């Protein structure tokens, strides 16, 4: 099949380098070139049928309506060599250890503020700081047990961490389903390469969750708390519950008793719950403390948590480190808490809260990406070169009125991966979201969810904004046949 669109060398491609397959990836390139458009499209069709029959879908919120769409998948995998991955993995573990040390410090001794490594004002204005968490000491000093970090590669090949999602990161079920599908449609490539398996994630997650149970016993009752079927990640909540053999509960299934313990309502009566993997945002967790109108949460849940009768993952308040301004201090945190050099760099960022930096941002806004500090999913993002004059002046106004809420970054020309587009294979931009677990141990998924901007030239990979996904292969011992 014809591979097109590789004329310029301004972008880093994960498979090709100046027209040739990168070292160890010859078989994949040969495979793509040897197949006719009809053959590859037939494979794509198979993949679509599989997705359909599995009922994999995500919900898109647009114009007030929920549309249940089947999830867009591209059959050509994204590849990373094992050797490079090992160092990325180390970097991710290091990062999450530092972030957890930071959260624990912030809600307790605040040494990092006292030592002026991070400015105190930062917390006062953080939307995700929760007073009610002050003085809490969760098991192992870990607040964010599950982290989804977004990493990207620039045109010179450097891998950066773009953001850390410490609240309720999603996407891991798609990562696992992607693997299942590509095994079905590309079995011969799995024969040729030694690809690291990733399906141990649910077992690792269950171990992580079990290890924070307040009642040390063999089989703690772990449940997954979902906002319900209308949540865009419901498929994933259900998927993980199923794979862990845990109950999938909604707020209305749980009740906090007079003894400040959490129980679930079963056909046999009330049954005690030890660990809640909650996929509900902080503010909806407990109407007694947070959003009074929330029907997604459980009245008294924070009481039970504060008394140590139930473990919550991620802990409430963990989002304080999941803020685009706090992000800029992560390299400093790594030094401060771990006394190590950061393995993975941050994307260079300008903080608008700093007058000098804000000035630079306002002057160069047309060449920058501006992000609200407290949004995720790409909402509210401003991409200089593609915006209208009107949006640009609106953005300038917003930055001036609330500088703390914005950071700006240079435009990173995300790396590309060959992607099937009609009867051609063309490069499309990608990022990668690996998932990192931490309790008394750490774990990183072998690869992650590769998100791909299916629109030619687009840099926006969010599934909520027209992105798709790919399977991610971490390849061991390149080229060797098994």
């Amino acid at each position, binding site marked *: 099949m014809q591979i097109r669109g590789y004329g310029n060398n301004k972008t880093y491609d994960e498979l090709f380098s100046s027209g040739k397959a990168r070292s160890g990836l010859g078989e994949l390139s040969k495979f793509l070139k040897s197949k006719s458009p009809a053959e590859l499209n037939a494979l794509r069709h198979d993949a679509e049928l599989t997705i*359909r*029959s*599995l*009922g994999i879908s995500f919900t898109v919120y647009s114009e007030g309506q929920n549309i249940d769409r089947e999830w867009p998948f591209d059959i050509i995998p994204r590849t990373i060599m094992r050797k490079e991955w090992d160092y990325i993995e180390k970097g991710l573990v290091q990062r999450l250890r530092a972030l957890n040390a930071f959260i624990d410090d912030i809600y307790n001794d605040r040494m990092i503020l006292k030592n002026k490594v991070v400015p105190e004002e930062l917390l006062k204005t953080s939307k995700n700081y929760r007073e009610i968490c002050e003085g809490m000491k969760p098991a192992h000093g870990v607040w964010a047990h599950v982290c989804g970090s977004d990493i990207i590669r620039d045109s010179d090949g450097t891998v950066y961490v773009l953001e850390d999602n410490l609240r309720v990161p999603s996407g891991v079920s798609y990562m696992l389903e992607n693997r299942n599908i590509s095994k079905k449609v590309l079995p011969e490539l799995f024969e040729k390469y030694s690809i690291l398996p990733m399906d141990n994630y649910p077992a690792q997650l269950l171990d992580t969750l079990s290890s924070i149970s307040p009642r040390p016993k063999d089989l703690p009752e772990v449940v997954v708390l979902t906002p*319900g*079927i209308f949540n865009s990640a*419901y498929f994933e909540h*259900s*998927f993980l*519950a*199923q794979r862990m053999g845990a*109950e*999938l*509960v*909604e707020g*209305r*299934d749980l*009740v906090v*008793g007079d003894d400040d313990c959490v*129980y*679930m*309502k*079963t*056909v*046999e*009566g*009330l*049954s*005690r719950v030890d660990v809640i993997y909650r996929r509900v945002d902080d503010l909806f967790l407990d109407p007694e403390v947070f959003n009074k109108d929330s029907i997604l949460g459980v009245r008294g849940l924070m009481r039970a948590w504060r008394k140590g009768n139930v473990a919550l993952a991620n802990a409430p308040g963990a989002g304080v480190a999941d803020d685009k301004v706090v992000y800029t201090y992560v390299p400093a945190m790594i030094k401060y808490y771990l006394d190590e050099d950061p393995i993975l760099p941050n994307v260079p960022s300008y903080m608008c809260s700093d007058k000098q930096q804000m000035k630079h941002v306002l002057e160069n806004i047309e060449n920058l990406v501006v992000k609200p500090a407290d949004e995720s999913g790409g909402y509210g993002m401003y991409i200089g070169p593609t915006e209208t004059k009107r949006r640009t002046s609106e953005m300038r106004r917003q930055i001036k009125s609330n500088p703390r809420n914005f950071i700006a970054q240079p435009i990173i020309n995300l790396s590309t991966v060959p992607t099937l587009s009609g009867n051609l294979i063309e490069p499309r931009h990608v990022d990668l979201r690996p998932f990192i677990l931490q309790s008394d141990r750490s774990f990183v998924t072998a690869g992650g969810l590769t998100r791909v901007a299916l629109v030619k030239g687009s840099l926006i990979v969010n599934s909520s904004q027209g992105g798709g996904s790919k399977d991610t292969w971490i390849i061991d011992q390149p080229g060797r046949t098994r």
Partner: protein
Amino acid sequence: MLSRVAERMFWIGRYMERVESTALLLRVNTNLALDLPNSKHVWGSLIDITGDKDSFHETYQLENEQNVVKFLTGGETSSIRTALKNARENARTSREIMPREAWEKINKLHHFVENNLKTPLKREGRDAFLGEVIGRCHEFTGYLTGCMSVTQAFNFMKLGRKLERADMTTRILDIGCYNLNDPKHTELADYELLLWTSLLMSVSGYQMYRQHVDDHVNGEDVADFLLRDEHFPRSVDFCLDEVSECCEHLPLSDEPQRATNLAQRRIKNSNVIDLFSSGELHWFIDEVQLDLARIHHQVETTWFTYRNDSVTE
């Protein structure tokens, strides 16, 4: 098991059974209509079976073949499509409980039905379509029976299926009584044999009836067979025995069990032949339907509504 999930299992059972029985009903009556000089009554009676006459008349005027088929396949309330949609919605929200393949079967059937109902269902393709729906429902049930552990989830689903089935059998039988006893329909009397036969076929019971009942097909024997036969899986008596068995395997089942026993006693102690000849069968069926509603109510209050009087570890 979570009360909310138990409730969903129960409704998956009910709705999937409703999909199958509605398809069967339509299939048999399409055949019957071809044999009758005036098929008006047949189509009207199908609407009566659903107990949903009002919503039918919100959309349609005439109870003719075209409208009834539309209503029962793709309508908003008592149709195959709606029952399936509801089954799928319940299944989608409790996927972690069912074997994955069972969910896939519901999901695929949903897509199949949606695709086929995009254009009006013509008479030529109808039989094949309905046959496919019925077959896939059997696949679903067969898959559960063959591959799902007989746990609480399984028993709740089975409970729903058996209750729905008992209910549908009483409705179908009731329509038989109504059509043939109503003086307005005297012209149908000539076709009595044909009608009772098709009624048996609506519950896939013709062959079994022929094997177990010596006499030729007649109303009183058919009624007795459908209500009291101990071996036919769609007879009310048989379904109730299975409901009772499900209850035995579920916790705290005293009240649902009591309601089931009451219904069982009513059926077992009845003399259907007498009721038929005295024209009281319709009233009797009414009683049985109330019994079934009582069981449903007890199932709901015992297992699905939150109770906090017992704490277990």
